[in-house]
């Protein structure tokens, strides 16, 4: 039966213990490195020490996250916790898509990669009708025109653009 403490806990139960343990573990690992990763400068006040603020942050992390862990109403991981951890890992696929997009743009150019990336990801998400494909292509085109052509945000031209003839080359590098 759910206890009163469990009922009053803010947020879902699943995954809380794994997260708290991971956070405390990371904090302890980082604070154990403080002497090698920061320096203590002689003849400097405590507040001006380079070690002071990382120390404050890490002590706060260890102390408060440790207390959070101690105050958790659950001390044992159930299968729901592990299911939740597996759910966290599913997003790694989308980080892969994102990183693929990042790595391909400087090679193939912003416009061509976007025109392939958006419909491909939309296809992967299950939108396979022609209307959604056209909407995806239109969206990709609109994003490139708005941000690169009109607002001039800093996105380099693709290496492949170098093979284009003279005027077209500089137009593609600058605007697409």
């Amino acid at each position, binding site marked *: 039966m759910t*206890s*009163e*403490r469990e009922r009053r806990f*803010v*947020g879902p139960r699943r*995954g*809380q213990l794994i*997260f*708290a343990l991971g956070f405390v573990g990371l*904090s302890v690992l980082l604070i154990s*490195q403080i002497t090698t*990763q*920061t*320096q203590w*400068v002689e003849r400097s*006040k405590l507040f001006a020490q*380079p*070690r002071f*603020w*990382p120390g*404050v*942050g*890490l*002590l*706060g*992390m260890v102390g*408060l*996250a440790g207390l*959070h862990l101690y105050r958790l109403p659950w001390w044992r991981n159930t299968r729901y916790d592990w299911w*939740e951890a597996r759910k*966290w890992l*599913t*997003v*790694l696929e*989308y*980080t892969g*898509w*994102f990183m693929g*997009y*990042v790595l391909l*743009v400087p090679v193939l150019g912003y416009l061509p990669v*976007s025109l392939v*990336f*958006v419909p491909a*990801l*939309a296809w992967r*998400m*299950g*939108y396979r009708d022609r209307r*959604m494909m056209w*909407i*995806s292509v239109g*969206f990709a085109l609109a*994003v490139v025109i708005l*941000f690169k052509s009109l*607002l*001039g945000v*800093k*996105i*380099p031209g693709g290496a492949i653009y170098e093979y284009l003839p003279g005027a077209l080359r500089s137009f593609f590098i600058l605007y697409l």
Partner: protein
Amino acid sequence: MDLILSAIDILMRWDVALALLAGSVGGVLIGAIPGVGPAVAIAILLPATFSMDPIVGLTVLLGIYGSSMYGGSIPAILINTPGTAVNALTTYDGYPMTARGEPRRALSLAYSASFFGGIFSVLCLILFAPVLAKIAPMFGSREIFLAALLGILLVVVAHRGQSLIAGALACFGIFLQTIGLEPVKYTSRYTFDQTFLSGGINLIVVVLGLFALSQAFVLLTSDDEKIRLTKLHGGMFQGMRELTRHPRVASVSASFGVLMGMIPGVGEFTAQFMSYTYAQKTSKRPQDFGNGSSEGLIAAETANNAVPAAAMVPLLALGIPGEALTAMMLSVFYVHNVVPGPGLFQNQMDFVVALYLALLILNVLVLAFLLVATKSLIQVVRIPNRFLGVCILTLSFVGVYSLRNSVIDCILAAIFGVVGYVLKRLSLPAVPIILGMVLGGIMEVKLRAGMARVKEPLDFIDRPVAFILFLLIIIVLLVHIIRVLKDRKELKEAEWQTKTASTRFGGLLWRRRNSFLKDHGKKVRARHSKLLRRLTDLF
């Protein structure tokens, strides 16, 4: 008057006008799409605004911030899903109105209340600006350090029931901003001999990861919802007339919005809660609240729209952002070497007033746009969740990569995206990390500068403003401790009440006696006496 004229002069430019239009329309659209929200939009657009003039860039971002809540009320009223987090209270009374066939009345009332809140707040602050200009110079390094500390404390204690982990996440933010080359002694901190960490972790990369990428991941891993939209007939002007029948609720709610907005870390939710409670307690029909009360809707919408202008006060006057959105705006100032703080109020007051005037114009533009375009605008809520995720992921690339064209930044943003996704799944707050990063940096610089002239610890609070801030910190801590103790007492009482056994002393003795007389009790006593004998044998 001269001040207002010079402020108007700053705004009389075609690019500012375009920014106002783009900010207002864009903000309404973003607010109307559940699952996007102003934080995602501002995070994505932030690097794009770096190439603009400060006034143009800030107008776009302010436009999105100020108008998203107008748009957020549309899905809150029509489909019971708040467009932005702060429109959650709008669903309480807005959706029941739709359910009983009055969606047009609810929407027009929400727009009118939001408009009133926005205008009231801006006018208050324009009138209040000269006073602020006098107070702001009283803030030196120590006062700004204490104000930043107060801000971080308020953010942490505002997360009731989660203050420990919110505090730990704020400390994580403080730690993150220390990574890299330390600017005074030039020593490296937590770089692990990696060159890419020497420059530190960029705030925008963290913001984009925690807000934009994580939201994309949430949408990509969720299911599409089937939405049934109610058709709207007729005009949208009746809300104006209805609002004039509740001037007290509207003005008190707007005042709560202004006051709460000015306090770092408090924001819309507290303002709404206080306004709603006030409106319910003073209403002649309190039973209608939660069932489609016009007063409830006015209280919620007026309060949340009065906050954005007020939230700019600590940012502009002290350089201290009170929430994630103003923290993001701070980076626009830094990029253009405009340092918000007392100096800005003393030397560039016209710039500050221009920003407020821009917010004023923005409210008018948004209202006009909504009155005309609501019927077409409601179609944006039909965009499927996962496709929205694809769009946010594509736009996040622009935000992260255009910053420095760095793949490392993108990897870091992806990591923070996963962290943000985990936090969202666990209903844990990401805002303390951002505020920890921003306020931690401010605290480090200001404490070092403030302590340089301090001989004894008590000298730190010997100035009146510093002393008042110190007292406020103590009060906040005390109130929080009292609240935690009260919660623990309530929990214990609730645990006792749910126990099936009697809690009377007589009952306890009766159970003890029975336990002793039972076989198990005899075994326990035999074991205890054996142990006691072993112990006494030792001596």
